[in-house]
């Protein structure tokens, strides 16, 4: 099985993740979409690492996992804070980022 198939798989996973982020209002689902995109990126890193015969991609994949774990902690905390403040986790409700 050619390693390039993993790149395609990563692209598909990234697309599914992006679609989840863009189309779903539920913060948890969107969050899962983000995780999916990160994983797709990881998969691509590992696949490229294999294609080029080098170790860098795999190392970076570990870094991404660490960052993703930290991000999950922060993200879930934000979602809980949001729920406490507004009794909802819909992403369309808050517009505090508006200028």
């Amino acid at each position, binding site marked *: 099985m050619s390693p390039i198939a993993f790149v395609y798989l990563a692209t598909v996973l990234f697309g599914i993740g992006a679609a989840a*982020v863009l189309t779903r209002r539920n913060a948890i689902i969107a969050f899962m979409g983000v995780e999916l995109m990160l994983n797709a990126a990881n998969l691509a890193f590992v696949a490229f690492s294999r294609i080029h015969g080098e170790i860098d991609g795999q190392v970076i994949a570990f870094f991404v996992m660490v960052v993703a774990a930290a991000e999950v902690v922060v993200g879930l905390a934000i979602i809980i804070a949001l729920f406490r403040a507004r009794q909802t986790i819909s992403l369309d409700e808050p*517009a505090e980022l508006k200028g």
Partner: protein
Amino acid sequence: MLDLTWLLIAVPLASSFVLILAGKRADAWGHWMGVAASATAFVVGFGAFLQMLGLDAESREHAVHLFTWISGGELTVDAGLLVDPLSISFVLLVTFVGTLIHLYSVAYMEHDPRRRIFFAYLNLFIAAMLLLVLADSYLLLFVGWEGVGLASYLLIGFWNHKPEYATAANKAFIVNRIGDIGLIVAMGLLFANFGTLGFAEIFESVDSVSTGQLTAIGLALLVAATGKSAQFPLQSWLGDAMAGPTPVSALIHAATMVTAGVYLIVRSGDIFALTETARVVVAAVGALTLIMGAIIGMAKDDIKKALAASTMSQIGYMMLAAGLGPIGYAFAIFHLITHGFFKAGMFLGAGSVMHAMNDSVDMRRYGALRTAMVVTWVTFGLGWLAILGVPPFSGFWSKDKIIEAAFVGEGWQPWVFGLTALIGAGLTAYYMSRLFFMTFHGKARWTDDAHPHESPWLMTVPMIVLSVGSALLGWFLASGDRFTTWLEPVTGHAEHHEPVLSVPVIMTLTLVLVAFGVVVAWLQFGRSEVAKEAPAPSLGVLVASNDFYQDSFNRAALQRPGTHLTRTLVYADAAVVDGAVNGTGTALLRLGEFLRKFQSGQVRSYAALILIAVAGLIAGVVLGVL
């Protein structure tokens, strides 16, 4: 006394300021101070004149240095006065006639609450006029030139609570400004060619400049003269200027200011002597205005406007004489002096008639005033005989000389100018007789509330004095060529030339034409009934009574295109310049409004934007665009 000539200007000017600044406190005595200021100027001027008479003809030119006006680098401009036979003649005319008119105004303006201001303006006018004629450089002359323009504006618009009077004042002012451009251009050219504006320096080195330059200077001076002297094509203001109080019409618009153009031409005689072209144009303008003014005068029913047209026409005579060169200069000034007397006298007479007729100026409502106003009738009659040129009254001596001089020359010129002057004399006789008969003879055509009566002595005395001048001054100045000899140091000695027709023939022709004009006028307006309302005008009368539609022409040919041009420029300014500036602002604002929509605060739309942007960047990299 000659060194004290600055007093001539200083006294009326000071009086004018005092009258303006003193306020109501001066109401009781202000007018007498105005009269006194003018009279003082006359005394000083007369003293200077007597002193000058005691000198040799050659040394009658006296320069009075006043002060250094402008001093910077190479350029030094001195303010100084030039007292010579020409300027002293003007000084005597202005101060003598001016003082009489001041006196007349005391009674004429008696019931006007702003009489004090009126006298302040009159004094200002006298000061400016004297500065104009006494200046020793074009620059200082220009100060007086503008000063009389200002005073004329203030006086025409003296009753400016009536909008049409204020409009007349504006018109006079604006038309005069157009003429002033000529003087400014002339000064620019003079300075470029001579490096100075002083009369003495310019006239000394006038030979060193090319004829073309001198012609340009001469024509620019002519433009200035046409504005001030109401000559074609800038004559349209004079008729409207009659809106001002009658003493103003007498002082400014008959005797003094409007003659300033003639003075300018004669003063610049050394320049005109070297440029045939400019001289011919001056004479042509004079001849044209002389006929136009006469024709307009024939059609006017308003006594003051008829007199104004007559002034225009008589100044046409002076311009014509001035355009003839050295042979005409002295006669131009001679006619100017006699005209100053008889025309001022007639204006004062007209004022006296208006005074008696409830300020009506319509001659069709006068008639048969000779019994009710004997003094006015007699004094006006003397002025009438003088302007007709009937011997031995003043106008005969001066006007006949101009007609004779107009017949001197070669080729077509003597015939055209001479015959114009000759025909002008006939027309003058007709319209002045028309005016005289309509006013003083025939049947009474008054409205019921008119009670004609003679004016008070303050008004009649100046009229009497002026009428004596109208009767005798011409003869006095002409006998023994007294006046021309007196002016010779300034105007130069003119060789005697024979006119193309012999002098007795010209004189006879003139008198026949004059008699003919008077007889026709008598038949039409003296013996027959005059319609109370103007009959339906024939085409000729319609054209003449509308001043040859000069106003309409000016409006159509100059004012309206000007208005359109400025409107277009204003529109272009608003649409193009402002449009570009405002458009940039608006465009940025719109862009901001558009971009604002993307800053919605919606997390998912931000995510979508980032995704699209990244996808775009990657696509760019892949396709090799970036």
